[in-house]
């Protein structure tokens, strides 16, 4: 009787030890995962900051103006180009000024090619 009880207890201890160990093991894994994710987040944030700084230096208005003047045939907007919505119908030209898809031509592609 007592022996069977003791055997039960030993088994219970073994089972509990196994459960406890596997739980601890998995928790260690999760902790490592958290640490990895945290450092990845820090890295990503640093990267975002770095890319933000780079983006900001690329969209410098002074640089954009220089590039636009060099490569685009655009003029500064003139006040008479502003049209009210209800006057819009009278302002539509008969022929589109830039034919983007004329006979398989690629107007934007041509600009890009010219830039190269």
């Amino acid at each position: 009787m007592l022996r069977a009880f003791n055997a039960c207890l030993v088994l219970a201890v073994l089972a509990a030890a196994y459960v406890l160990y596997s739980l601890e093991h998995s928790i260690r894994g999760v902790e490592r995962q958290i640490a990895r994710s945290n450092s990845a987040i820090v890295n990503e944030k640093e990267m975002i900051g770095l890319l933000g700084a780079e983006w900001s230096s690329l969209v410098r208005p002074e640089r954009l103006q220089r590039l636009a003047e060099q490569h685009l045939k655009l003029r500064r907007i003139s006040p008479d180009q502003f049209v009210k919505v209800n006057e819009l119908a009278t302002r539509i030209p008969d022929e589109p000024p830039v034919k983007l898809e004329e006979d398989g031509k690629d107007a934007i592609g041509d600009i890009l090619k010219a830039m190269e």
Partner: protein
Amino acid sequence: LILVSARKDGHLAGRNRLRLVTFGFILFFMSISAQLGYLTLWQGPPERATVEYSERLPRPDIVDRNGVVLATDVPVFSLYADPRKILDIDEAVELLTATVSGFDVKGLRQKLMQPNRAFVWLKREVSPAEREAIHNLGIPGIGFRVETKRVYPMGRLASHVLGYVDLDSKGIAGIEKFLDDQGALYTASLAEDNTRAMPAVLSIDIRVQHALADELARGITKFHAKAGGAIVLDVKSGEVLGLVSMPDFNPNQENKNFTFDQANRMTSGVFELGSVIKAATFAMALDYGAADLTSRFDARAPLVIGRAVIHDFQPTRRILTLPEVFINSSNIGTARMALGVDVEKHKEFLRRVGLMDRLVTELPENAKPLLPQRWGRLVQATVAFGHGFAVQPLQGAQVVASLLNGGNMIPVTFMKRDRADAKAMAHRVVKAETSEKLRYLFRLNGLEGSARKANANAPGYRIGGKTGTAEKVVNGRYDKSKNLTSFVGAFPMDDPQYVVMVMLDEPQATPETYGFSTSGWNAVPTAGNVIARIAPLLGIEPVLTDEERKTLAKQAEKEGKT
């Protein structure tokens, strides 16, 4: 028997002892499990350890009103060595010089041959590619430290507003210093993951700032001016959308020994703004009821006060109505107008619009106005047209904004602000009718007076403004050949939204200006160019008269031909 009983007693005693021990063990384990239960079940999460910093504190980013990054921290890696741990100096030197350019072999060897030192810098600011390469060499005793570096991606743009930091990341000038004084650094250090804090959002619009800087630089080159400055101010919120002072500086440069000339002249310098101050005098006379739009002022002869004589720059030699005094910028007329007001009331008005006190904004660089010591009749007359009365240019812009926006003084700011918040902090300085009359005068001057060329350069945007040409004081005397020309105006005049101020220091006459170097020929057209560029950005709808439409069509035709 004794023996037996003793044995029996001994047996009993042993049993009791065993019980005691068992009891003790049970108590012990129970206390342990109780403690365990308490710790695991009832205790909250462990308190976060205080964030510790080995290197510099992180600074908050600075962004413009649309979120474009103007200043940020970037991590840089610096290479160091622990000479005690380096096994083979020759090999280390050879490997390093072979992988990374810019190493001086002799110097490197000397640095590594210090066996009693534990730390020497080998190279500051190593690029990521170099870092990877050095890392792959696997030399023992060599490592990297992460440092942060403050960068200003926009370079020179808005440098006077942003300011800069010293080598230890401490704010030295501009908003950077303001942030330090505000303790934003401290806030940043408490930020959740100690890498990024909330950015400081400025009122500056980087597109407006660029247009302003670009057009001002053009103006300075065109008229061979020594220096210049410009401001764009939101009339209804007091926000500064752009502030330029030329010559400017690059906050990214290593050596920050900037010259005095590179200082922010719009806030850290005081100038006699000349006729801009006249606007304040008109507002005073109209607000006190000392004059109205139909009042007449005798400008037939120079005004004599004691031993001093006040002349007009371009004498009209007739009796002028109040609008005519404004358009012709008559010193005599303005002086007479001011003399119609009591001295104390005059001073009280100037104090009310903030011209008597130092203007304090977020920028730490601010100058105290230079005011006359004793206020007699002569001083009152000269102050009326801005002589002997020097203030920060930003102060001038603030006054004009408050006179045109309906009469509410809103303190200027470099940080983004809601219009509702601005309304709450506004206080009335002149009556709404006075503001209405000033709008009329400003618009009239933009249509017929000295500010005509602004409207010619920016048709449709209904600009009104006041010009000023002040002679500079050289060695304590007014020098007729050296001018400081300024323009301050607003658009669109039917409901002013933005104030633009342009200032040129010693502009020269060119053939194009027919030999004139007054404000109307240089500062005004420059301001017109600025407005033509920023008005579409700021969402101001142009309204063209038929005449303007024709001129524009002619211009387009001309350009189309060439």
